């Protein structure tokens, strides 16, 4: 972790064990990978001298120099495009797209180029980039700073999509993503950058340091892509979630006293289908929760997979709880968000069937 971020972490932490919020954990992962691998470079809008609008790259330019960590023009097409060229040279670029909502101008370079380069060149050229981008709502970002476009990327063959939900996972998964030789979309749930979220926007924010998963060891470690995390075991139902929603469903389940098994998928492609099958076969009930819009969301894919593979173990129809099929509204943000009411009622219904 860079010195600036380290200072922040120390002042925020009086415990013996090192506790980091998600921003610090991401900064730590970037720091370690920049240090370990001279081919890693970090670039994006405002990531250099300033250290990123969310501070994820704070102190890195000072430590590694301007040719390893630098600002870019406001051009997502250009950022992804030059990253593909850098990957062809042999670098391992980690571009930041400032908000997931801004990634669309770079889609052709991601979908037609990065995702297909290995395939179309029969592995002569690869695109080992990791595109980091904050995503999701809950910070009054309006319709251009709140979207969850993960299913656009899971639909593309050749892209991996990773979404951490804790500081510990963010560091380990980001290190794996950077080391991966395929292009990875790494979406960071910005609502939980500074603390996990219960789903109650009107209650005080709990900081990460009170959460077990904020214990982030120093130095290198990695978490393999494609392995889900069992957040808690349970027998009554399986809840599949990722990102911010992992914490929301955990808090709602605890509140309702439901014996739910919660799986944090962590990686959508490749998906840990074994963990999903094993859990649903055990519980016989399945609920899928995501913040993204409903139609053609990743929940539809999950629902189809569970139906195809666990149909005879299901005791009730699969439940989907999602954002609504509207743009993310500014002032009605908390009416849009799939919060405790929507999730709680879905849990009741799933158990009653």
């Amino acid at each position, binding site marked *: 972790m860079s010195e600036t971020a380290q200072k922040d972490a120390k002042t925020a932490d009086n415990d013996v064990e090192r506790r980091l919020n998600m921003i610090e954990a991401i900064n730590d992962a970037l720091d370690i990978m920049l240090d370990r691998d001279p081919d890693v470079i970090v670039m994006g809008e405002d990531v250099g001298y300033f250290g990123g609008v969310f501070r994820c790259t704070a102190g890195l330019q000072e430590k590694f120099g301007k040719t390893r960590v630098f600002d870019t023009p406001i051009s997502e097409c250009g950022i992804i495009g030059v990253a593909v060229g850098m990957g062809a*040279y042999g670098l391992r670029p980690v571009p930041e797209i400032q908000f997931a909502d801004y990634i669309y101008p770079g889609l052709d370079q991601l979908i*037609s180029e990065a995702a297909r380069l290995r395939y179309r060149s*029969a592995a002569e050229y690869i695109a080992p980039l990791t595109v980091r981008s904050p995503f999701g709502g809950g910070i009054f970002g309006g319709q251009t700073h709140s979207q969850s476009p993960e299913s656009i990327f899971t639909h593309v063959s050749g892209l991996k999509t990773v979404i951490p939900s804790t500081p510990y996972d963010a560091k380990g998964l980001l290190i794996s993503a950077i080391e991966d030789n395929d292009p990875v979309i790494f979406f960071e749930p910005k609502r939980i950058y500074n603390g996990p979220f219960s789903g109650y926007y009107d209650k005080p924010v709990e900081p990460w340091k009170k959460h077990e998963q904020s214990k982030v060891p120093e130095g290198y470690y990695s978490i393999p892509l494609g392995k889900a995390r069992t957040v808690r075991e349970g027998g009554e139902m399986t809840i599949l979630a990722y990102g911010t929603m992992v914490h929301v469903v955990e808090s709602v389940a605890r509140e309702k006293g439901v014996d739910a098994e919660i799986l944090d998928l962590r990686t959508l492609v490749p998906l840990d*289908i074994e963990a999903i099958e094993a859990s649903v076969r055990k519980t016989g009930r399945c609920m899928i929760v995501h913040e993204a819009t409903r139609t053609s969301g990743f929940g539809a894919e999950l629902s189809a997979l569970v139906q195809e593979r666990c149909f005879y173990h299901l005791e009730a129809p699969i439940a989907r709880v999602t954002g609504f099929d509207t743009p993310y509204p500014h002032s009605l943000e908390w009416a849009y968000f799939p919060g405790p009411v929507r999730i709680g009622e879905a849990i009741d219904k799933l158990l009653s069937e």
Partner: protein
Amino acid sequence: MADRPDNSAFDGSNKPQLALHVPEPKYRPGDTVDFTDLNVPPAGEQARPDETCDPKETAPLCHDLVRVLGDDDKAHGPWDPKLSPDVLRTMLGHFATVRAFDERMFRGQRQGKTSFYMKCTGEEATSVSAAMALASDDMVFPSYRQQGVLIARGYPLIEMINQIYSNKGDKLKGRQLPIMYSSREHSFFSISGNLATQTPQAVGWAMASAIKGDSRIAATWLGEGSTAEGDFHSACTFAAVYNAPVILNVINNQWAISSFSGFAGAERTTFAARALGYGLAGLRVDGNDPLAVYASQKWAADRARANAGPTLIEYFTYRAEGHSTSDDPSGYRSAQEREEWPLGDPVMRLKRHLIALGEWDEDRQAEMDENAATHVKQTTKEAEKNGILGHGLHHPFRTMFEDVFEELPWHLKEQAEQAVHEREVKFPEGLPNR
């Protein structure tokens, strides 16, 4: 139509009525072509600034036309690259190979041996002569009409034909449309098929080379039509911002399928002039003049290698044939354009230049052309032993799933098993020939 607001002063207003301009080419099928209004300056009259000059000094050259070979078939002026007759004959040999190859592959497509082909007739210099001015390990990010680069770099013709036939010998495993080659060994980037996407990639490669303190530069090619893509704007911006060691070659061959260059803005200014707004060095060059192409590419390469900055070059040329085997240009442009094209044919111009130097003659040219045709024909027969496109099912079905990712994830494993199963159901006796 959108309703106007109630307080609109439209009714009874004396404001001038707006009119939309939709570009229209000068000549359509059957029209008599007259190119006398096309400004073709005499060869040798264009100044040649130092390679390390301020981009501003290239401003006059963005509206001029750098030419070396004159109507007298001799080299003129400061841009004369003074190449030896041996180098010129090598260049002419590459031209002969490219032309023979294009003829053969075009015919192969018409004979049903493959699905698609694209010739580069009339534009040979923009790839062959440019490639010869670069170092063999400079990285090129081509568009789809740069077969001349591969041939100038000595890429085996049989690899090209195997790829065009998508046969058993195709090292791209039949995954790519014909002519979308890739050769890392020849520093030739995988051709996308999407337009202009290669331009920011070339800039990124050049940035990486600079980050690493390497000495290799990057060059990219795109058509004038696809300069309208946002990617090209991104490429120019990044190239200028980071002073990337890159050359952006715009091949202005006047036509993007049926859309003339006016639909990319040619009615307003030159494509070379795009450079000025970005602060790039810019050159507008006679693309049918092999010596001018070589000299300009060398100028830009030396400039990039000296950390003096990127260059945007417009090669002014003419697409003598259709866009591809799927295109019939007689439906949208006058056949006379090709005949009347005032900049001539690059192959003929180089041949006449060598003859004027006393270093070549028609007999040797005829022999060269015949040798090229024979070489291509024999190589084609050799490649056909690996099969032609035919039913296309030449590679094991499992290979369809490889290289999507470095490792096969579970869902692709399942789908690969399904594909192999379908093959067994459909072809219980094994695949038919072809």
